[in-house]
């Protein structure tokens, strides 16, 4: 497979990730029985936001505006290591999953600093919740990817995902799907979706992720939201890659399959959001625990 397609897939991630949010919205609108916001709404929002300036209070420092930029940069960096379907990522090295996870963590850390910089009680509360849950989700993510690595004998994410379909045929899909299921739960946690968080809520006291960015306005919130869209894309690609045994010798079809998988995950997220309530905040760790158990089972099964 030519590296050109790696860059094409990278470019597609950058341009299409906002559409993912639109797809989730439309899915939810379908289940509610309404027309809902246009598919392109996230793009309209970004165009408007990037035309706006930021709003800064006198009490915040550079940390406040640097957070969203650093977060976006970290997301872009991670994206270079995430394969789309069977198409390898533009960059890869053995153990790059740690690079992905930790650069996302770094971005989050800087967002947390930015949130704490405002000194507002909500943002502190949101930051504490976000850190607590992602702390729990991180090992689950590692164990799941490790499982896939054990199954495929691959070292980098691109290697792992590139050979997954073959292994699905040979070793059965149950292990891979278990691990994929765990990654899917991590997706819900990391991307602030129902049942963990409600991205559309207006209630400050119940927010997790949203509470952290209440004070960012204009272009800054644009950065935050774009970073979030990229992150959603990455996780969707990882989940889709583990679930769909699609593989083709034609790189073009490969790209299409990869994108189809990503959007299928977005639709699934929309369906989940339409069919259940949020968990009580105190129950979220239990959900992550469940994901952890899935991942461990998959690992044991794979290492058997």
């Amino acid at each position, binding site marked *: 497979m030519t590296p050109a397609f790696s860059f094409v897939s990278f470019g597609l991630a950058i341009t299409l990730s906002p559409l993912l949010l639109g797809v989730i919205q439309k899915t939810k609108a379908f289940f509610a029985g309404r027309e809902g916001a246009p598919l392109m709404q996230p793009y309209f929002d970004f165009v408007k936001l990037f035309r706006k300036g930021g709003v800064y209070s006198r009490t915040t420092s550079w940390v406040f505006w640097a957070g969203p930029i650093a977060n976006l940069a970290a997301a872009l960096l991670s994206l270079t290591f995430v394969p789309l379907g069977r198409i390898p990522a533009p960059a890869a090295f053995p153990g790059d999953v740690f690079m992905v996870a930790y650069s996302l963590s770094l971005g989050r850390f800087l967002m947390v600093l930015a949130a704490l910089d405002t000194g507002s009680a909500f943002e502190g509360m949101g930051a504490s919740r976000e850190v607590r849950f992602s702390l729990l989700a991180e090992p689950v993510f590692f164990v799941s990817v490790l499982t896939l690595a054990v199954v495929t004998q691959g070292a980098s994410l691109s290697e792992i995902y590139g050979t997954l379909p073959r292994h699905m045929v040979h070793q059965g899909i149950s292990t891979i799907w278990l691990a994929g299921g765990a990654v899917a739960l991590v997706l819900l946690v990391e991307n602030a979706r129902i049942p963990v968080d409600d991205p559309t809520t207006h209630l400050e006291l*119940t927010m997790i992720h949203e509470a952290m960015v209440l004070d960012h306005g204009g272009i800054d919130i644009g950065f935050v939201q774009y970073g979030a869209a990229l992150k959603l894309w990455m996780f969707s690609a990882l989940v889709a890659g583990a679930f769909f045994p699609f593989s083709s010798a034609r790189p073009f079809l490969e790209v299409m399959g990869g994108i189809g998988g990503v959007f299928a995950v977005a639709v699934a997220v929309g369906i989940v959001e339409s069919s*259940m309530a949020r968990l009580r905040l105190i129950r979220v760790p239990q959900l992550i625990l469940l994901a952890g158990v899935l991942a461990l089972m998959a690992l044991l099964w794979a290492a058997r």
Partner: protein
Amino acid sequence: MNPPILCSLRNGETAVCSQESGVSFEQFRTLLGKGIEAGHRLSALFVVPDDSFDGARLVAVLARPMSGDLQMIGCAVGSSYPALTPGIPAAHWFEREIFEQWGIRPEGHPWLKPIRFQPPRSRSGGRPSLLLPTVGVTEFFRVEGEDVHEVAVGPVHAGVIEPGHFRFQCHGETVYHLEISLGYQHRGIERAVGEGNSPRMRHYIETLAGDSTIGHATAYCRVLEGLAGVRPSPRAEAVRMIAAELERLANHIGDLGAMAGDVGFLPAASYCGRIRGDVLNLTAELCGNRFGRGLIVPGGTGFDLDQTLESELKRRLDDIEADALSAIEQLFETPSVLARFDGVGEVSESLARQIGLVGVAGRASGLPCDVRSEFPYGFYQFVHVPVCTWGTGDCLARALVRRMEIQQSFAAIRALLQSLPADRSPPAVMTLAPRRWVASLTEGWRGEICHVAATDDEGQLAFYKVVDPSFHNWFGLACAMRDQLISDFPLCNKSFNLSYCGHDL
């Protein structure tokens, strides 16, 4: 305009002003204490200014469900008196109001702080003094300790709701204490109506709490009708009841949808939100206004229904009922929703009784309080609507009570539309009797609405007191939040869904 000393009245019946100064304070306190112990409710406790001496009259309205009547007790107090709250917790909010409005100090009140930050009312009835309190500035309760932190929300909230200020004393995610500080919606309606003959009075009352327009307007009209000795025609009473039950339907359905929205359960939230609008549209068919403005007028109703409207309402009601019941069923059949409602924000029956919860919140805690059956008025005298209670006092109970009441209201409206009384006499002219007192209770969708009024020697309204159900229940919300997760507050809040403007007046 002296209040009667001690009399028992039926709901909406008048009493003549007394010439004497009332029972002694000791007697007053004993009567009240004994009454509450016997299961009566403190519907209102307020002060009436009196120029004849340096003090005022303290008046209590006790609702006595067993005998189905209201007891009005009056006594004279000076510029201070021993607080009733320590023995009668239900008086807590009332005494704070008395202190704030008139500067009469209930000595020994454990929690004497402003509730509305309104300018004090002068006892001679003139304009308020210039000394204005600053809203939200008071000594808030604080829990000491290193791990305890304070989260303050409002007055402007993130959602599309009214302003109010909430302070949580938290330990991590757990709430030790919630203090509610309101007054942002204070417009001075009670004073304006108590000053007598403004042409806007009915409109003031209708906008006292927009979602309870019918409830408050009915209480107000019944006050005037009582004072004038006028009885609306049975048909008007029936239309009023239809309007009241439509109001209950709309709000209960909307509340269930809002509770679903708060736990992020999209389908029920979306469906209920729309269905609520459809019910409001039925009210609009009646009078042109979705909230029922102009429908309830003194002496009768502003609009009547004809044959076509009747059948139109019936037809649409059937559609709405099918939609509403399926949406609500979905809510109660989704385990993830029940898990969120169950056991959250509990108020025990004994606590509810002590602090005097009314309406949906009271019934969810197992109190059979419902003015419609305890002190029936209007058409409720002829049609009995069952009281729906549940014992657990949590969010689930408040949701379940709403669900039962929705079913009852559908049935009640349908029965009424089946057999509307025929006579259509127009509203009579109102001439109020002089020197009378009257107390009127209605059951708004939130709970008991109490209006008390008095006329002067010329037969003009000279005193008016409004008690919205929210006034009784806000403290209940604070109690419900004890030891709960702070992230469950929005849900608890919606499950009570109290009125800010109804409280602030």
